[in-house]
């Protein structure tokens, strides 16, 4: 990340901010009612409206949104506006299955996403395959956040702190507060982060807009600087546009950590009102992020490949030139960025530990474990996985967007189990299982080869194959499959 080299006051503020996260960990521990999985991983199923809305917001808008979206806006130009549609469609996707899933979760005390699969399909191999897919996705998600954390810390300190030590320190803070308080602590860090992000975005837009003589003039200039980035999609690009909406819209709606937040809602009406807020949020949050990317095309021309992921850092560096107001804004933004990364990573980590403890350890290794024991296993698992991810994060070299896409390639194949499971009581587990296998093969092979046939993402193509197989098997053998729904 571009060096920002903040002064002592700014670093003290960020330090205090990080300490407050540990405070939330201690608070979360005090609030714990017992050592049950539901209390630890779902905050006692008691999340109210403001917390629910902000934690859903923080879960979906992470380091990827801040660095990956601005970088992709820079690379792709106006056609990346499709991410606005995609993020809205995530909520449309929720509406198809979340209402019923929330009622079922409340009634049957689900803790992990796989609990629903087990309840609905009664097919252990499907349950385990979905658990493995979700664990892989969560590892990818955590890894992506850690990579950015390293860059941010290095830039923040002007290169005085090595990326590795930055990642280690922040990962330690993260795992401590999430171990102490579970989801309670994590959602309150989300609340802090979401609030600071919203304030930071408004401030940074105002200051940059003023300095460049207004957005409209700068965006007009874009037509001269990079006219190819202002053109509407045509031909295969149009297919890719729709494929992106499917990939992200449907894929992100089955984030394991988001599904667990659906389970954790205090009531149906809390979830309902949160969805209203979430459906409108992209029109502000994503549009702001994209606007920064477009302004950067004019201000910092010539960035190629993963260098474009540094656009946000460059904007922050230039904002520092605006005296004490600039420093204050950048300080708030950096604290918010760190929190965004950490709270996204800790959500993924918490979800990972719950799936490992309950669906792998509690199901395959020691089915006689008590909930207290599974909670402890999950906590240990979080420490081990985070240590492994920290190690890997210093060795990977993939642009953020590629990591982002890989996650959705897998999630998209899992989506039919939730969407069709909830909406079609006659779909059997065998059809979903073989559809998932076929979809995964197409998606993973396509991703590995780096091909996009007809402009379709491998994940979208995989989903088409997945649904085709499900349809065929449903019609030929699964139509009378027993349903627990």
């Amino acid at each position: 990340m571009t060096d920002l080299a903040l002064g002592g006051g700014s670093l003290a503020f960020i330090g205090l901010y990080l300490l407050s996260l540990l405070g939330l960990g201690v608070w979360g521990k005090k609030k714990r009612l017992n050592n049950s999985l539901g209390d630890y991983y779902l905050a006692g199923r008691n999340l109210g409206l403001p917390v629910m809305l902000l934690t859903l917001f923080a879960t979906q808008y992470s380091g990827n949104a801040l660095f990956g979206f601005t970088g992709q806006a820079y690379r792709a130009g106006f056609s990346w506006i499709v991410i606005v549609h995609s993020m809205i469609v995530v909520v449309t996707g929720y509406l198809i299955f979340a209402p019923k899933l929330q009622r079922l979760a409340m009634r049957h005390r689900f803790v992990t996403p796989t609990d629903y699969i087990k309840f609905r399909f009664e097919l252990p191999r499907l349950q385990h395959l979905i658990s493995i897919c979700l664990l892989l996705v969560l590892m990818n998600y955590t890894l992506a956040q850690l990579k950015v954390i390293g860059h941010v810390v290095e830039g923040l300190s002007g290169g005085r702190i090595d990326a590795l030590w930055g990642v280690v320190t922040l990962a330690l803070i993260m795992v401590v507060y999430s171990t102490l308080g579970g989801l309670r602590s994590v959602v309150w860090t989300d609340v802090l982060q979401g609030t600071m992000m919203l304030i930071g975005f408004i401030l940074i837009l105002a200051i940059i807009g003023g300095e460049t003589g207004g957005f409209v003039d700068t965006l007009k200039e874009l037509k001269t600087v990079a006219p190819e980035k202002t053109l509407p999609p045509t031909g295969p690009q149009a297919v890719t546009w729709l494929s992106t909406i499917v990939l992200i819209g449907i894929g992100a709606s089955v984030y394991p950590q988001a599904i667990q937040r659906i389970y954790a809602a205090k009531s149906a009406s809390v979830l309902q009102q949160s969805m209203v807020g979430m459906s409108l949020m992209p029109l502000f949050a994503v549009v702001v992020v994209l606007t920064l990317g477009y302004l950067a095309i004019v201000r910092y021309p010539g960035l190629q490949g993963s260098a474009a992921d540094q656009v946000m850092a460059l904007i922050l560096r230039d904002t520092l030139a605006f005296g004490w107001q600039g420093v204050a804004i950048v300080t708030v933004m950096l604290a918010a960025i760190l929190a965004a990364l950490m709270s996204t990573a800790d959500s993924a980590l918490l979800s990972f530990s719950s799936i490992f403890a309950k669906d792998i350890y509690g199901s395959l290794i020691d089915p006689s474990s008590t909930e207290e024991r599974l909670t402890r296993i999950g906590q240990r698992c979080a420490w081990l996985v985070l240590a492994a991810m920290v190690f890997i994060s210093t060795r990977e070299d993939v642009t953020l967007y590629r990591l982002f896409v890989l996650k959705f390639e897998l999630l998209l194949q899992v989506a039919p189990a939730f969407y069709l499971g909830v909406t079609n009581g006659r779909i059997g587990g065998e059809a979903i299982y073989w559809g998932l296998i076929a979809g995964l093969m197409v998606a993973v092979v396509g991703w590995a080869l780096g091909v996009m046939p007809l402009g379709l993402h491998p994940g979208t193509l995989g989903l088409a194959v997945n649904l085709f197989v499900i349809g065929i098997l449903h019609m030929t053998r699964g139509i009378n499959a027993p349903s627990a729904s």
Partner: protein
Amino acid sequence: MGNQQEKSDSQKRGWLGVVVLLILLSCPWYWSAFGGAEDQWALPGWLLWSLGLALAIALITAWASLHRWHAGDNDD
């Protein structure tokens, strides 16, 4: 009860159908057919059109989350 369920299913299909249609329209690959309309605006016309459709999708989704929620209470 049966009629209520049918009505709710029909509403679900209705709003989902509208959202899918708007999603399909949101990609303005057909924009060149309108030729040069973007020059009248500070931002390209196709971008404003697509953002307008995004707003419509968001509003319909928000509306559906308020109205659809209890539909299907009996289906589990």
